[in-house]
């Protein structure tokens, strides 16, 4: 009890009094990684400071060195890594000069870290309580009942419900969100001065991510910690950070306050990052993708000038030869700084906000006119749960439980939902990559209607060319043992489409590569020689090879960086215009939906809860889940009120009675438990399955 009071004292007004004081200073940090014969300069002269009570964000795309910076601060580098220069000062102590024994006393005690993957960062054979008390024992000499009490307090503080029971549980009994909370509790156990959050919410769903971000914000305010936030998501930066540093190819290219960087980014890289974010305001126009790729970190020292020069749209002649210095953009500690020659001539203008007013005219046009290509009715995919040696079926996972969809020719339908809601299963069941358990999938085929769900394998084979799929992971979706030419020709040979003989196929393959923007010499190479974005282009070309009318895109950009995502989205949009393709776009990224989709269907636990034209659903969401989902997405421009959803999505093996969403719904009513609500129309094209929409008197509509 006294312990807790002390803590509040320290973290309360006194801490805020000391706020702004420097707690961690990184000065010219250099970290090299040995990779085969090459030396990769992962962190190359990074300097920044972290002040008490602030959240400092380090933003950058994958491979820019931001995680290596964090690992260097903790001195937890992989065996191949070595810090070759610079200093890391925690108050006055140089961490890089400490012996390993002393460093262990710093880790977890004064500087703590939370990692990206909650599934692997907890030890699976120790209870949650043990993992927290371990930290207390090590750093605070707290044992027995005292440690247990403290662990309980910590779990309460990070919002773990029923903390006393959770202490005795093992990590596998907890959901992803709860595990991340436990990780945070363990990190906070010794009350560290600095918390490093390395992509701490990347593996979580948006609604859970919103919970964790809120938690971090609250903890920081209460304890006056400094948070070093490492992320690639500009939306998270906008929600949480006080100051921002943008990293590119091992260097920091821009510093600034959140407002400064968000409103008026000064470095062309930062500007182009913002411009490559998809959003409603960019509908109908191509995204400003950053061309090319990040230079190899093994070779950056051979570049005499700016590392971004080759990809920059505003490069000057001297950018190639002269390395730009860090230029301060004003007086005072919070003034922005940028590593760019352009800024020696003055500041750049503020960028236009992303969320422009409603420009949905294009979306409305031709809505009803396009003919239906694919109609999915009451699609079901059930997986039996088998137990025991006799494999008796003891239950069913209703992964997809009665899904209706309608896809028109040349349009994009977005299927949106959190992980585990069954959206990918639905997509694969439509293609019969997973056998559906029930329902109809009707394909319009020159006047006739064909039910794909019941066709024989042979009859289906003839129609395989009509529908294709592009997968999420560009590394798993291409056979590493086949050359690009063989990959592209496989479908053509198998289905006898796109070219009768070898010469015709070769011609078609060359045309395909051109269409997806890859050089012709790519044909003779193996997939591992390409970057993630290029691989996704190959996967798209493979799908296009058999001249499909519909492509199921299963999160095609979620494994890619923002700038590469923009390239792929542009390509998909271009292909739709040129070839009149229809897309079933499965995603959890609502910004992409806003940019690309015409219609949208929101899925929750195997069922569609809301569907309609994209502008209707996103601007006037009717279902409470859709509203919560929309509000949870971190936005780059302005901070919205987040509708907090408690708990986690339930299991599809044991869904709640009545409306599946009612246990988490902020507007739950007694009749929600009775039965699954029917689809109720809010407009001719917009329906939602929620009792709130029913015209019953006395219903409390929010």
């Amino acid at each position: 009890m006294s312990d807790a009071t002390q803590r509040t004292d320290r973290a309360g007004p006194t801490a805020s009094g000391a706020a702004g004081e420097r707690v961690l200073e990184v000065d010219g940090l250099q970290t090299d990684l040995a990779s085969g014969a090459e030396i990769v300069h992962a962190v190359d002269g990074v300097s920044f400071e972290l002040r008490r009570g602030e959240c400092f964000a380090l933003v950058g795309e994958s491979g820019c060195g931001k995680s290596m910076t964090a690992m260097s601060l903790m001195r937890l580098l992989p065996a191949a890594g070595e810090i070759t220069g610079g200093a890391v000062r925690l108050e006055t102590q140089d961490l890089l000069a400490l012996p390993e024994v002393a460093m262990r006393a710093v880790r977890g005690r004064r500087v703590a870290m939370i990692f990206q993957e909650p599934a692997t960062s907890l030890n699976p054979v120790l209870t949650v309580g043990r993992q927290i008390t371990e930290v207390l024992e090590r750093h605070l000499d707290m044992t027995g009942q005292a440690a247990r009490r403290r662990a309980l307090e910590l779990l309460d503080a990070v919002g773990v419900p029923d903390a006393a029971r959770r202490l005795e549980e093992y990590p596998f009994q907890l959901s992803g969100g709860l595990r991340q909370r436990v990780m945070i509790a363990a990190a906070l156990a010794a009350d560290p001065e600095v918390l490093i959050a390395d992509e701490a919410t990347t593996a979580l769903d948006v609604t859970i991510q919103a919970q964790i971000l809120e938690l971090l914000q609250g903890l920081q305010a209460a304890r006056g910690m400094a948070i070093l936030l490492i992320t690639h998501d500009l939306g998270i930066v906008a929600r949480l950070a006080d100051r921002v540093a943008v990293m590119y190819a091992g260097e920091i290219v821009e510093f600034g306050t959140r407002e400064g960087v968000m409103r008026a980014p000064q470095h062309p890289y930062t500007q182009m990052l913002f411009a490559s974010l998809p959003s409603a305001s960019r509908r109908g126009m191509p995204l400003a993708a950053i061309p090319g790729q990040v230079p190899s970190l093994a070779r950056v020292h051979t570049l005499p000038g700016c590392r971004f020069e080759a990809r920059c749209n505003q490069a000057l002649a001297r950018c190639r030869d002269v390395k730009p210095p860090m230029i301060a953009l004003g007086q005072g500690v919070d003034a922005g700084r940028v590593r760019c020659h352009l800024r020696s001539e003055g500041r750049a203008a503020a960028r236009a906000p992303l969320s422009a007013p409603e420009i949905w005219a294009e979306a409305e046009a031709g809505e009803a006119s396009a003919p239906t290509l694919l109609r999915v009715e009451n699609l079901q995919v059930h997986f039996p749960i088998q137990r025991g040696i006799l494999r008796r079926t003891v239950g069913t996972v209703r992964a997809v439980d009665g899904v209706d969809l309608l896809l028109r020719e040349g349009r994009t339908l977005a299927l949106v939902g959190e992980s585990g809601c069954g959206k990918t299963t639905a997509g694969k069941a439509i293609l019969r990559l997973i056998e559906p358990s029930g329902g109809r999938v009707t394909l319009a085929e020159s006047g006739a209607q064909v039910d794909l769900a019941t066709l024989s394998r042979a009859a289906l084979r003839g129609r395989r060319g009509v529908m294709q799929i592009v997968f999420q992971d560009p590394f798993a979706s291409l056979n590493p043992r086949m050359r690009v030419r063989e990959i592209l020709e496989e479908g053509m040979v198998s289905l006898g489409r796109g070219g009768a003989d070898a010469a015709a196929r070769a011609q078609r393959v060359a045309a395909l590569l051109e269409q997806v923007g890859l050089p012709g010499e790519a044909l003779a190479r193996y997939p591992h020689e390409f970057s993630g974005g290029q691989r996704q282009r190959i996967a798209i070309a493979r799908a296009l090879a058999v001249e499909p009318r519909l492509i199921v895109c299963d999160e095609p950009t979620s494994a890619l960086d923002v700038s590469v995502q923009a390239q792929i989205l542009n390509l998909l949009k271009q292909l739709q215009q040129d070839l009149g393709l229809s897309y079933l776009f499965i995603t959890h990224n609502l910004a992409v939906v806003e940019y690309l989709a015409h219609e949208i269907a929101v899925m929750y636990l195997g069922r569609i809860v809301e569907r309609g034209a994209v502008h209707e659903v996103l601007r006037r969401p009717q279902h409470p889940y859709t509203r919560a989902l929309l509000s949870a997405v971190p936005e780059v421009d302005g901070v919205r009120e987040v509708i907090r959803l408690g708990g986690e999505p339930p299991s599809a093996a044991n869904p709640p009675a009545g409306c599946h969403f009612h246990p988490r719904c902020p507007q739950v009513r007694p009749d929600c438990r009775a039965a699954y609500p029917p689809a109720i129309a809010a407009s001719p094209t917009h329906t939602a399955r929620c009792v709130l929409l029913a015209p019953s008197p006395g219903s409390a509509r929010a």
Partner: protein
Amino acid sequence: MPLLPVFLPTDVLLWLLVIAAVGYGIYCARRPHLAQPWSRVFRSPGAVVAGVLLGCYLLIGLADSLHFRARLEQASASGQAAYAPEVLSLLDVALARLRAGTERSYSAPLATRAFVREMVEQPDGTTRRGFPRLRQGGAHLEDESQWTEDIARRALLGLACGAALWLLLLWSIRPLMRRAPAVPWRAGLITVGVLLALSGPVVVLAGGYHVLGTDKVGQDVLLLSLKSVRTSLVIGTLTTLVILPFGITFGVVAGYFRGWVDDVIQYVYTTLNSIPGVLLIAAAVLMMQVYVDSHPDLFPTAAQRADLRLLFLCIILGVTSWTGLTRLLRGETLKLAELEYVQAAHAFGVSHGRVLSRHLVPNLMHIVVISVAIDFSTLVLTEAVLSYIGVGVDPTTVSFGTMINGARLEMSREPIVWWSLSAAFVFMFTLVLSANLLADAVRDAFDPRVRIGVA
């Protein structure tokens, strides 16, 4: 024709395997995704050392796998050439001196006198018990006091020859070293140097002595050890030829089709695994022996009979040991079949056969390569154990197992006869150790999880 080539079944298979390995090498060299891991293998010094040692064993084994029957001098009356009943190999010819120089019984390494006391006829005509001079070992010495001097002279001569050969090699591979600087040539050259330093003196000494002594019937132990190499190689390699078709087919099919196919295959290998392997092998070998004994006309020479038994042992060992590979491949296939490129192939309506042959098997080959490399050493050891308990190779076939089996009684003699067992141990240990080292390097190079910093 002075020779009648004899094609023993194991010879043919062994040479086919060599041709296949060379073919695979050429195939790999043309494909960067295969050439890369192999070149990584030979960048590790351990693998180069192991490779050199295995290469020597392979040379010995292959020289011992070219068999023929020599033509007899006196042609038969009909004018037809008659051939010796004894089947010889190239190695036998090279070691003719060792083969010819048999003693009466045991003799210690480099000894000039027998190990066992015999009745010796004295110059004066009387007989008394003593250690007689050997027929071969040190027979050229007029006075046994010259022994030390003679040994030293021969050893030095051998060392000099070895050093000369080594320098010649160094000079001849110089351009190669410049072309491939990443290969740890130093480790390889040191290994070759050590080998030459050992074998040079041995070769020169073998001209006058039994370097490793003789066994109970007076055969040179060095000869036996060298002849055993082929048996080990045959068992280690041919058995995998039997394992691979079973292992790959069943593993991939079970993992890909699942359902009842998987159930049946799992049932079969679980059942097979629960029968003690030795029991099965003993029963099969005995059955084969009965068949051979009742059809003597089919196998005219003893060598052919012994070879058939060796081949049969390979087959039965293969049939009983494919389960491990199958289980590995089944698990990996279960994982691969869920991968997106396999699903993409399904979306193209690609047939099951093509999915298996183009998408699954090529992506499983690294496991096959690794397990073949690891299985080799296990099989060599298994042969020794089986021959020791008497269900292994034919008693006339020389193998490490039969040598160890013979050493059972030698160990209980007083004074102890240690050289047979030691020779078998050192030769087999080197073979298995280098096979293991190479297997380790292969696994490191092919296992994607171990690969660091390679995209």
